[in-house]
């Protein structure tokens, strides 16, 4: 299973959302890890359905959180590595750094 817990965000916000993603995965594992035995078909089906829905919910939350995390990571990167075309005084070191990380591909 893919795990996000160890990826580690570069900002406190990213670290916080990584912990939330990890909590969603742990919740999913915990709900699927126990098989309740009700001994009565209708009650069994009702609880099994709740477990399935709970797992689905945590998966969706984790998916939503991952999407947010990735979008936010792009913003963080842009913030830390501003576009030299729009920066007021782009320094030589800054442009070289952007070239090194391969993001500013149109840089002449």
């Amino acid at each position, binding site marked *: 299973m893919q795990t996000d817990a160890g990826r580690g965000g570069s900002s406190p916000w990213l670290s916080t959302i990584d912990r*939330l993603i990890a909590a969603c995965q742990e919740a999913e594992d*915990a709900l699927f890890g126990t098989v309740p035995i*009700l001994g009565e078909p209708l009650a069994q089906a009702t609880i099994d359905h709740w477990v399935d829905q709970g797992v689905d919910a945590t998966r969706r939350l984790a998916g939503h959180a991952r999407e947010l995390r990735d979008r936010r990571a792009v913003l963080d990167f842009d913030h830390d590595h501003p576009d030299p075309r729009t920066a007021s005084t782009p320094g030589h070191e800054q442009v070289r750094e952007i070239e090194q990380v391969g993001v500013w591909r149109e840089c002449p």
Partner: protein
Amino acid sequence: MTRSVVPGDPSSLSILGADALRAGRQLQADAQALASRRADEAGGVDRTSSHEAGTPRVRKDLDQRTSSLISATLLTAEEMLRIGRLFQERAAELSTAQHTLQGLRDRATAAGLGIDGSHVSLPWGITGSADADVQAKRVADRDHLQADLDRLQSSASTRRRALEREVKSSTAALTRIIEGLS
């Protein structure tokens, strides 16, 4: 052998309840931490973030989605906490009911009777006594035990239906929460 009037495994239900409670608490804590982080950024406390990066539209969209995630996570956590507690309560009730049933079985055995599913039965064939008084007492014991067994079954059935109602309502709530996640 006929099914027990109080079927189920209390320990497995209790474990699921504990897992749901633990998951709910963790989700709640992490959603609150994210809400706190969002508030810090909005208030300008967190200067290390890219809160001011991106266009206003992008920032607003990201903030709305973060808010939506926090709300959905807190609501999901509430459902897990509510149902987790319910599972544990139900597990304790089930355990008590099964203990009561065992007590009825012991009483039946002592009275020369048997319990099969939801019925208290007189022994088959020759029982070693042709005494009318003994037979009458055995029938009376059976009737008393049957009444106790009926009450136990009715109570267990009522509690099971109540659990089903609550769990179904939670399943529907979880569905709504996720559908509302934008």
